[in-house]
């Protein structure tokens, strides 16, 4: 009866407005709900809806939205008999009280679209509706060169039927940094303070950005034209010129020596290393040093330690989680071997992704045990962690709705989860042992909205992978393929971040359209080179360390004082907790024990080894915990906390680590060698901060020593001050 009624009504409506174009729910109405903000997360798009009415977030589920508008409470939200009385229109225009306020008035096209759709019978769409497949924002680059005229942008949407339409009035806009450039809800961009940023338009499930550069109007800028060492400098300098920044000068030998040691090997240079380098007169001595350090054992240890941290490597004693000490050590040694042999990154990842076998004997199988630290494997965890770790992409938003600020859809998410539904383990020969393998016949993950089984599909893939192939092999091949830009970009960005303590995309594990790189061409080129080098990470690191950009001084000039993202100067970078501790140990010659590890272990090699469960935040070393080392509770890059705190200061000031290190015997040893007071002070400086004291510093320090030239106390105080200096605990 009701159906008949609405059919009749639709017929009358259609007759009444026969000369008007038919309003499509999906093509016309959904974009209005999006643009008016009805389906955003703080309003009806919230998972519980708002005030009793819920819509899918940003419209990922049009069928559900259609149902809730027209059928959940018949005749209320949409009233085809008296269209103007539809609650949808009354609420949106603020004619009745609405928590979200007035969204638009009756004169707007938005209102007309909704009203006409209701007049025409509030029908769903028959058959296929052209879907947007891409959007463009023009102009793609906006430059404000001292002139403040606003710029109107335009958004075009391309549809699956080949048509394209101007959707400027239906898109949403925002700026990544309104204090540089703001964009209003009509897409008009206005400039503010000097700098660079992006403005974004969003329409349907797409987000797209345009770069905005704002230059000072009174600039008296002249490029200093420093020599480029390699392609990195060309791309950085290009960017600096566009932003009217000047790079700092090249760092001196002492600063460079310390910097490259800390970044490549995780410890400062020794006295002999210092003397050898400073006395070396060859012009290519920096190149030679970089080559030598890349081959050092310390480089292998540091690189291994960083990997082990990123995959949450920990050894436990609670057998059901399969992360036994022996498993952890097998995995650690395997990683170390790969790094030592300079195994290409693509093969290194491929082996882990496809690993099968015993957790105790086949190291790489523990990628799976370590990522979950749980009694059972969780396909959704794997999907989220794999994309975050190997691609720098966070897809977990798409578990419940299309990613609002990136291209990932729920289809992408569930298709990706299906790679992991077959990964299984079964008990091995002893309680600690588990066999990890992939069950070929596992059923795929089901889509959250309609329960559809989603066959394993790579991110952004149009069709599922070949079902004949082992899904993990298909995944590994795609992940590490030279064509997979995400993989090469993520690897390059993380390598870059090791040397600048800031990725070109930051945070390194949150690459998305709405978080673009600060220098896109540079990231593209690094990724291209990494592929060209067949994923030889040492080669890419060599390029980075040899670049003038890496070797710039931390002393700012008039233009770059505030720059902290374009690499126009070196920044003060807090040492990682483990690097700081290893530095203290090395410069003082302290024999420090690490819990459950043999003597001589370095902090960078240390990982938590517990007799208990590993499924919780663990540090197992008080120093490392206080100084913000990752607790390995998740793979998030944010687990590492580089910020200084008062507790850290107190610990450096009076804590047992500093105290034991100072008393470890260095000063008595120097005294025994019969060194003069200036000689002792000089050696302490070289050991701790890799430079000789200036004459003023030496005089001031000697003054502090006074007549206590033969006792240890004064020198230990100087040693303390060096360990507590900003120069020591930061790389500069």
């Amino acid at each position, binding site marked *: 009866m009701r159906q008949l009624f609405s059919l009749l009504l639709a017929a009358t409506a259609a007759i009444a407005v026969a000369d008007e174009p038919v309003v499509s729910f999906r093509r016309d109405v959904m974009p209005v709900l999006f643009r008016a903000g009805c389906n955003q997360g703080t309003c009806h798009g919230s998972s519980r809806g708002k005030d009793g009415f819920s819509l899918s977030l940003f419209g990922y589920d049009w069928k559900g939205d259609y149902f809730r508008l027209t059928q959940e*409470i*018949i*005749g*209320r939200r949409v009233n085809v008999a008296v269209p103007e009385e539809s*609650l949808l229109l009354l609420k949106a225009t603020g004619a*009745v*009280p609405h928590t979200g306020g007035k969204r638009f008035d009756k004169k707007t096209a938005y209102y007309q679209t909704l009203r006409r759709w209701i007049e025409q019978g509030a029908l769903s769409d028959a058959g296929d509706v052209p879907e947007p497949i891409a959007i463009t924002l023009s102009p793609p680059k906006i430059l404000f060169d001292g002139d403040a005229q606003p710029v109107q942008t335009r958004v075009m949407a391309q549809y699956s039927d080949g048509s394209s339409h101007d959707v400027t009035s239906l898109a949403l806009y925002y700026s990544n*940094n*309104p*204090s540089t450039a703001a964009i209003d809800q009509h897409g008009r961009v206005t400039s503010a303070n000097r700098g660079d940023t992006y403005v974004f338009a969003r329409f349907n499930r797409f987000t797209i950005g345009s770069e905005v550069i704002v230059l000072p109007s009174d600039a008296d800028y002249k490029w200093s034209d420093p020599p480029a060492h390699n392609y990195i400098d060309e791309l950085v300098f290009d960017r600096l010129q566009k932003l009217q920044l000047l790079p700092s000068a090249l760092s001196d030998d002492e600063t460079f020596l310390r910097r490259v040691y800390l970044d490549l090997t995780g410890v400062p240079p020794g006295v002999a290393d210092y003397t050898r380098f400073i006395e070396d007169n060859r012009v290519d001595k920096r190149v030679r040093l970089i080559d030598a350090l890349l081959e050092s054992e310390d480089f292998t240890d540091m690189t291994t330690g960083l990997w082990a941290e990123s995959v949450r490597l920990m050894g436990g004693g609670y057998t059901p989680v399969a992360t036994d000490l022996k498993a952890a050590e097998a995995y650690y040694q395997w990683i170390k071997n790969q790094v030592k042999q300079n195994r290409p990154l693509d093969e290194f990842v491929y082996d882990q992704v496809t690993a099968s076998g015993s957790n105790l004997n086949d190291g790489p199988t523990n990628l799976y045990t370590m990522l979950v630290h749980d009694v059972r494997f969780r396909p959704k965890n794997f999907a989220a962690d794999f994309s975050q770790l190997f691609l720098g992409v*966070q897809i977990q938003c798409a578990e419940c709705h299309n990613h609002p600020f990136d291209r990932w859809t729920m289809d992408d998410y569930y298709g990706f989860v299906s790679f992991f539904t077959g990964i299984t383990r079964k008990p091995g020969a002893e309680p600690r042992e588990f066999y990890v393998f992939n069950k070929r016949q596992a059923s795929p993950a089901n889509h959250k909205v309609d329960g559809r089984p989603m066959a394993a599909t790579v991110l952004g893939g149009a069709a599922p992978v070949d079902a004949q192939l082992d899904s993990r092999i298909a995944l590994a091949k795609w992940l590490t393929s030279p064509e997979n830009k995400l993989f090469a970009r993520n690897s390059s960005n993380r390598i870059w971040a090791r040397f600048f303590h800031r990725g070109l995309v930051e945070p390194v594990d*949150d690459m998305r359209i709405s978080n673009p790189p600060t220098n896109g061409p540079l990231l593209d080129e690094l990724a291209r080179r990494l592929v060209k080098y067949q994923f030889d990470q040492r080669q890419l690191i060599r390029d980075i360390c040899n670049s003038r950009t890496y070797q710039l001084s*931390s*002393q*700012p000039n008039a233009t770059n*004082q505030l720059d902290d993202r374009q690499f126009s100067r070196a*920044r*003060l970078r807090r040492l990682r907790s483990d690097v700081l501790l290893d530095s203290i140990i090395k410069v003082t010659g302290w024999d420090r024990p690490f819990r459950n590890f043999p003597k001589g272990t370095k902090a960078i090699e240390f990982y938590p080894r517990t007799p208990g469960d590993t499924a919780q*935040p663990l540090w197992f070393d008080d120093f490392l915990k*206080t100084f913000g080392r990752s*607790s390995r509770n998740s793979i998030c890059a*944010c687990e590492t*906390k580089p*910020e*200084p*705190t*008062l*507790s*850290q*200061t*107190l*610990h450096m*000031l*009076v*804590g*047992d680590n500093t*105290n034991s290190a100072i008393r470890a015997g260095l000063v008595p040893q120097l005294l025994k060698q019969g060194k003069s007071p200036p000689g002792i002070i000089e050696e302490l400086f070289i050991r701790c*901060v890799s430079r000789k004291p*200036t004459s003023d*510093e030496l005089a*001031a*320090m000697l003054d*502090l020593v006074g007549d206590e030239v033969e006792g240890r*106390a*004064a020198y230990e*105080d*100087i040693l*303390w*001050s*060096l360990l*507590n*200096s*900003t*120069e020591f605990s*930061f790389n*500069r």
Partner: protein
Amino acid sequence: MPANHRNRIDRRSAVQLAAGGALGLSLPALLRAKESSSEKPPAAKSVIHLYLTGGFAAQESWDPKPEAPTDYRGSFNVIKTKTGHHFSENFTRMAGVADKMSVIRSMHCKIPDHGQAAYHLFTGYVPTTVIDYPQMGAVVSQQFGPRQNLPPYVAIPDKVSSTGGTGYLSSKYGAFELHADPGGRGEFKVKDFALPAGVTRKQLDRRRRARTILENRLRQQGVDETQLGTMDEFYQRAYTLLSSPEARAAFSLDGESQATRDLYGSGYVLSYRRQPAAIGARLMMARRLVAAGVRLVTVRYDGWDNHVNIRGAFTDKAPALDHSIAGLLTDLDDRGMLDETLVMITSEFGRTPRINTSNGRDHWARSYSMILAGGGITRGQVYGASDATASEPAKNPVSLEDFLYTVYHQLGIDANNELLAFGIRPIEIIKGGKLVKGLLA
């Protein structure tokens, strides 16, 4: 359809009437304007925040629902409080000081997940990947700075990591964690708080001067002034802490009489590993710190995630908690400190109305209780109410944002104000919170 139609009109006109009525009442607005113009000093000078981690059950404590069906009602008998309301019988001492506090029985928040809800409780925001928000303690540090050379924000014994940190504010505003438990076994000593054996004051002074020589070189080169400044501030604070006798006294329980210790409850032992119930000493420590000048102290007390045998858990842990809270409020009041010290007793959410099959209760964010006392908060009231089964707020619902807004208000901070994140992006301290007038004395 006709029924719907009529309903809608009725509701619409009703709401419109209400709106009109509200417009007519310009008195509150007038009062508000007056309030801000008179610039009276803030009511609260300090905050003691007792955080009961895990999701504390209101049914087994301050909202026992004695008339609810058996599966729903609190696991204990009830007693009358001094104000004539009901508490669970294991909170007898608190019942005796109910005239000093406001019990809010209509709290509600959003997420029944420990980590996210704890972050929400401490920062006022649900966690996002885009912006990390600062904890209230960090905001208070940033707004007011140190008082009497003490760190403005202290965590006893340490901070719960999921509750966030300084977010977009500088790390120098972060909580100073004791990393030691005043109520634990053995001697209580704040970590890294004394010169190592054999190092003299004279040496400390020389170390300080030597460090200044080194820092000057970087400063002369103009290297990263902000970072150098932050480090310098940390060192200044650390030197002060180590050398000021007042500061050092604040961080110890020396000199507290046995009578005072008994007031907070001493000698309670918990069943798990026979460990001492640390809460009394922790709260006494908090009072000492606040008295010495700390602006905001958080005290954590774990163990309220009672999915299993909730009656057993409360039988074990509630007596010490009851004793210590009653002791704190009495002590503060006797010393004349309660009016300027705001005590907040919180948890990240409440627990399910119905007892589960393991005789416990699970996570429930839609209705729970929290307590505010002192610092200009009404004495002796129960504010709001939960419904018959403690499933939803039934009267005067208070959101977390309202709750935090009100605490900020009492401290003299307008939480509608914006802070600058990353030096450029303005963000409200609390978004969408309202002052809960009914809580103000």
